[in-house]
């Protein structure tokens, strides 16, 4: 069914389709609508889930950890400060190999307090062992949530999946979303969760017990491997989704007008939409420019990036996060990928934009493309700063 949905509704409706047994969350802007919609669905009897209210994000993550360890499908959502407060538990969820799905309505971090969009929150949990997907628009947010559970629950993966949805830009914006009518079809796509290891009185296991030096490293190695194996699973999940529901937004990456491009803009999230519009215009003025969208940030799609960038001369990385003392985060990972694959001669310019909700307009993007033509291997350059008096 085609509907006009707010991003938050698209997310909660996607979550409704997978029928999680347990949902627990703590409110934080701009995630609140997601949880309020879900709470209403449960209250109205449209979703048979346990909706557990808690007193903090730390508790929300702990509740879903506990429930997930019992072998049921679980979901939570947060943003910004809430996410970094959850981080301790996310490490545990990943370490215990529990398939929790978590939405992050991406928002800046304090201080100063700022409720608007960027991706610094997501970057702060980069190394927790959670798979990190990033949605470009409301349709993808809807579809990605259904895929997320399939990826998380794959026996070869068994890791939490974080679905990043830009705060306000997507969560509070209405777009046309084609929702799935048949919950039966979703059940077919995503069979009931069947966990090999779970808390079960008839077949007891322990979770999270002391990992001495003799075993800790192996447990991390297994997690590391599962993350690598998940690449194949993410691709499969996207492909199967396309076959069953007709929608495809890329697998680990997506490309736009890359066939003859000598310049490529790399980014993730909702800004991709603006970049595509700008690229259309730039192409009219004769520039051979394309877009590479990172759909899966963790696992990082090295092979796919390498093959997509084989014939490219210039790369512009645009990111809404920064690593103070170094530069960009995505840009560094792109450079590393190129270097390892003997493609270090490609010129990579990394720019920081849109922190704390600063607008990124098509004009910013034209200007950046012009600027990048003059620059060579710059990194961590802030774009759109106000002139400070």
């Amino acid at each position, binding site marked *: 069914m085609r509907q006009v949905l707010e991003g938050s509704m698209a997310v909660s409706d996607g979550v409704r389709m997978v029928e999680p047994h347990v949902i627990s969350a703590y*409110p934080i802007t701009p995630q*609140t609508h997601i*949880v*309020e919609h879900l709470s209403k669905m449960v*209250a109205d009897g449209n979703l048979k889930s346990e*909706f557990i*209210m808690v*007193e903090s994000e730390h508790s929300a993550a702990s509740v879903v950890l506990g429930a997930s360890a019992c072998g049921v499908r679980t979901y939570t959502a947060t943003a910004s*400060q809430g996410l970094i407060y959850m981080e301790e538990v996310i490490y545990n969820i990943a370490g215990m190999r529990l398939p929790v799905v978590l939405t992050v309505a991406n928002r800046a971090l304090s201080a100063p307090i700022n409720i608007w969009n960027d991706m610094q929150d997501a970057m702060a949990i980069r190394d927790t062992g959670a798979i990190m997907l990033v949605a470009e628009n409301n349709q993808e947010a809807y579809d990605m949530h259904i895929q997320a559970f399939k990826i998380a629950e794959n026996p070869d993966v068994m890791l939490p999946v974080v679905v990043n949805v830009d705060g306000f830009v997507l969560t509070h914006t209405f777009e046309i979303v084609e929702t799935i009518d048949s919950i039966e079809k979703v059940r077919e796509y995503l069979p009931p969760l069947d966990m090999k290891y779970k808390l079960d009185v008839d077949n007891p296991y322990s979770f999270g017990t002391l990992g001495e030096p003799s075993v800790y490293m192996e447990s991390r190695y297994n997690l590391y491997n599962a993350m690598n194996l998940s690449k194949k699973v993410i691709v499969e999940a996207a492909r199967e989704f396309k076959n069953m529901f007709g929608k495809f937004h890329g697998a680990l990456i997506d490309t736009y007008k890359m066939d003859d491009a000598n310049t490529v803009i790399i980014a993730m999230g909702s800004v991709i939409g603006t970049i595509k519009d700008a690229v259309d215009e730039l192409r009219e003025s004769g520039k051979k420019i394309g877009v590479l969208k990172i759909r899966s940030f963790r696992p990082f799609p090295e092979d796919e990036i390498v093959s997509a960038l084989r014939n490219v001369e210039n790369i512009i990385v645009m990111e809404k996060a920064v690593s103070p003392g170094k530069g960009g985060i995505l840009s560094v990972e792109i450079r590393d990928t190129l270097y390892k694959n003997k493609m270090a001669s490609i010129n990579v310019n990394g720019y920081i934009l849109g922190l704390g909700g600063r607008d990124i307009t098509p004009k910013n993007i034209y200007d950046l493309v012009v600027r990048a033509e003059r620059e060579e291997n710059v990194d961590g350059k802030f774009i759109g700063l106000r002139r400070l008096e």
Partner: protein
Amino acid sequence: MIKTKFDYDKYLRKNTLPHIWCPGCGDGIILKALLRAIDKCEYPKDDVVVASGIGCASRLPGYVDFNTIHTTHGRALTFATGIKMFKPRLKVIAISGDGDALAIGGNHFIHAARRNIDITMIIFNNYTYGMTGGQYSPTQPLGTYSTTTSFGSIEQPFDACNLAQAAGATWVGRSTSYHAVQLEKFIVSALKHTGFSVLEVITNCHISFGRRNKMKSPVEMVKYQKEKAIPIRSAENMSDEELAGRFKTGIFLENTDKPEFSSEYRKMAETLKTK
């Protein structure tokens, strides 16, 4: 009587105004009472620290011209503790909403009380998470509605004053944003107390709480405060039935016997130095 000519400007950072509070919100009344109380105590502005967490209530420090720190959700007391321990001569005030103080920050609340550290905490209890649009809070009365308790809350609420006393606070009181004169007096008393003082102020959030609980306007909410507040004395002669749905106001506890933590700490440091 409140002097009508009180010069609030002296204590306000006018460049941060207008404030973000909704017209009719009770928080502004508490802000004004706090300024009058500080003025009465004659603390030099630079000796006052106001720390807060996150929420509508917690925006207060941004508007007042003292040393202020607006921190992370639930943690006002921890930052305040650090400040008090390092500079014990400062007057440290912590501002929290009910969620900030008793949900996400509940742990810090009981530990500050247990230590009896010389901080004055003012809890703006509007029974809800005002800032995030009215989700359930740990002080939300049984049976009332919020965006996450569509059929009425079935969770037992905290009584902040009982909790503070049980945990070890040495000054505990409750007033409302309707009883502005009493409120000012109580703040003075709490500020003058040495030890952990907790003042719970029942305040009105018609936007996030009232609308969902048949009190759409600030007037209805203020009436609620006026009608439901029972001074401790009057409550003594009332049955449980008569007290149902009401709350007591007054100073429940003022205990000056229990040692205060930051001074005990200094004492200990001194003894160790002389050893």
